[in-house]
C-alpha cells in the first residue's frame, strides 16, 4: 500500500537550535497517527512543516507521491489539501461561524457562496453546532470554537487533517467534546496526525503512535506498545512523568 504522506529525513533549524533532526514517518490513507513527547520535542514544528507554514531545511514531504516540500512546489495547492487545527483555535473574529467556514471554499475553491453554505450547514449539523451558525467566535466556548475550527478545515475537503494539541487551551470540562469530534472523524476514516498530551485518547483513537524527543523520532509502533511498554528509556521516563501529572 502506498503512503498518503511520506515524510523523509526532514531537518528544521531555528538559528542554532535543531528542532527536527532527520525525522521520517509515513501514513497510509485512513490511518490515525498520534505524536506524543515532551514539550519542545518538535511535534508542533513537524505539523507546521507538513502544512508548509514553516519551510523545512532539508528532506522530502511526499503527499500522494509528490514532494510538497520542494521549494518549487506551489505551497497554496498543498495547504488546501491538508487541514490543520491549531491549539489556540485561530478562528477569524470578524466573521460569523458560517463565514469562517465558507471563506476558504468560496475564495480558494471558487465554490459559490450558496453551495459552500449548504456544505457548512451540513457539517454544523453533524457536529451539533447548527444553532451557532450566525454567532461570532468570541461568543462561543473554547470547545465550541475548536469544533468550528475543525469544521472550517473539513470544509476544504482535505485528504489529511493535522491536529496541533487541539485540547491543551481548553478548560478540562470542554476537552471531551473536542476529543469526541476527532474520534468521530477517525471512525469515518479521515487520515489524521494528532499531536496530543491526552495519552489515554491517543491510545484509544490512534492506529500508531510516534514518540518524539529532542527533534527525533525515538520510538514508533502500535499504541499498546509505545504507550504501555516502550522499549526506550526516554519514552519510559516521559510516561512515568505523565502518569504522575494525571
Amino acid at each position, binding site marked *: 500500500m502506498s503512503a498518503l504522506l511520506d515524510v523523509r529525513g526532514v531537518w528544521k533549524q531555528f538559528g542554532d537550535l535543531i528542532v527536527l533532526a532527520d525525522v521520517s514517518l509515513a501514513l497510509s490513507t485512513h490511518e490515525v497517527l498520534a505524536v506524543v513527547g515532551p514539550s519542545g520535542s518538535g511535534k508542533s514544528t513537524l505539523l507546521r512543516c507538513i502544512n508548509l507554514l514553516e519551510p523545512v531545511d532539508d528532506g522530502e514531504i511526499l503527499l500522494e507521491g509528490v514532494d510538497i516540500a520542494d521549494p518549487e512546489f506551489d505551497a*497554496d495547492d498543498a*495547504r488546501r489539501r491538508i*487541514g490543520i487545527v*491549531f491549539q489556540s483555535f485561530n478562528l*477569524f473574529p470578524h466573521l460569523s461561524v458560517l463565514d469562517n467556514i465558507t471563506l476558504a471554499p468560496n475564495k*480558494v475553491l471558487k465554490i459559490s457562496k450558496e453551495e459552500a453554505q449548504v456544505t457548512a450547514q451540513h457539517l454544523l449539523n453533524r457536529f451539533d453546532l447548527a444553532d451557532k451558525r450566525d454567532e461570532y467566535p468570541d461568543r462561543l466556548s473554547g470547545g465550541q470554537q475548536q469544533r468550528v475550527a475543525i469544521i472550517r478545515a473539513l470544509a476544504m475537503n482535505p485528504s489529511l487533517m493535522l491536529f496541533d494539541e487541539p485540547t491543551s487551551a481548553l478548560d478540562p470540562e470542554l476537552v471531551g467534546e473536542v476529543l469526541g469530534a476527532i474520534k468521530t472523524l477517525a471512525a469515518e476514516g479521515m487520515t489524521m496526525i494528532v499531536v496530543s498530551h491526552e495519552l489515554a485518547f491517543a491510545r484509544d483513537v490512534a492506529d500508531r503512535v510516534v514518540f518524539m524527543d529532542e527533534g527525533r523520532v525515538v520510538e514508533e509502533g502500535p499504541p499498546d506498545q509505545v504507550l504501555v511498554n516502550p522499549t526506550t528509556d526516554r519514552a519510559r521516563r516521559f510516561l512515568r512523568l505523565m502518569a504522575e501529572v494525571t
Partner: protein
Amino acid sequence: MTEAEAPLRDPGASPGRARRLAYQNRQRRRSLLIGAVSTVVVFGVVILVVVNSPGWPTVRESFFSWEDFKASFPEILNGFARNVRIFIIAEVFILIVALVLAVIRSSRAPVLTPLRLAATAYVDLIRGIPTIILLFLLGFGVPALRLQGVPNSQEFWAITTLVVSYSAYVAEVYRAGIDSVHESQTAAARSLGLSSAQSMRWVVLPQAVRRVIPPLLNDFVALQKDSALLALLGVQEAFRRSQIYVAETFNFTAYLAAAFLFMLVTIPLARFTDYLIRRQRERTTGTSI
C-alpha cells in the same frame, strides 16, 4: 439536590441590599452636588475677574461684537461650505492612497520591492516636511511652471497638498493596525489555502481597519482644521473670508465666527471618536476604566 431546588431569593428584597443601594444613591447625589457647586464657583470667579478687568470693554468690542458677528457670518458660512467640500474630497482620497501605501509597505512580495522602497521613502519624506511648505510648493510652485495639461486651479492643488501630506500619516495608522493583527490569523488563513494577498484582503485588513477607526477619525478632525491653511493660497474658504472682513473693519470677531464654525464640526466628531475608543476598550477588556 436540595440546594438546587431551593427557590432563588429576590435580591431586591433583602435588607442588606436595600441599605447598600441607599448608601450608593446618597454618595451619587453628594458627588453631583459638589461637582455642580465647585463648577459654578470657579467659572463665576473667572468671569467676574475678566469682566471687571480694565481692558474688558475693548476686548469685548473687538472680539465679541454681536453686530460684527452678524455682519460677517453669512460670507464666512458661505466660505465654510467650501472647507467642508474640500476636506470631504480630500479625506476620501487620503483613505484610499494611505491604504494602498500601508498594504505595499506591509507586503513581502519581492516583485513589490521597488514600490515598497518608494512607499517607505514617501512616508518618511512627507512626514518630515511641514504642511505649509508643501502647500506653497505645490500651490504656488507647480502652477508657476505653466506646464501643459497640469491644472492651475488653486483648489485642486490645495486638495492635492492635503492628500499628499495626510496620506503619509494615515498610512502609518493603517500599518499599525495591520501589525496588530496576530500572525496566527495569517497562519490560519494560509493553512486553508488562501494566498498571501487573499489572507491580507479577507482576514487581516478587515480586522486592522476596524481597530484603527478611532485614530483615523482623530486624523480626520486634524484635517478639517488644516483646511484653513488653504486661505494662504487665496482659496475663498471660511478663514480667508474672515481675514477679508477683519482687514476691512479691524474687528477680530470674524475670526471667532470662523473658529466657531470649525468647532461646530470638529467637537462632535472628537466626542464621537472618544465614544468609539471607550466602546472598543469595554469590548476588549470588559471594563470601562
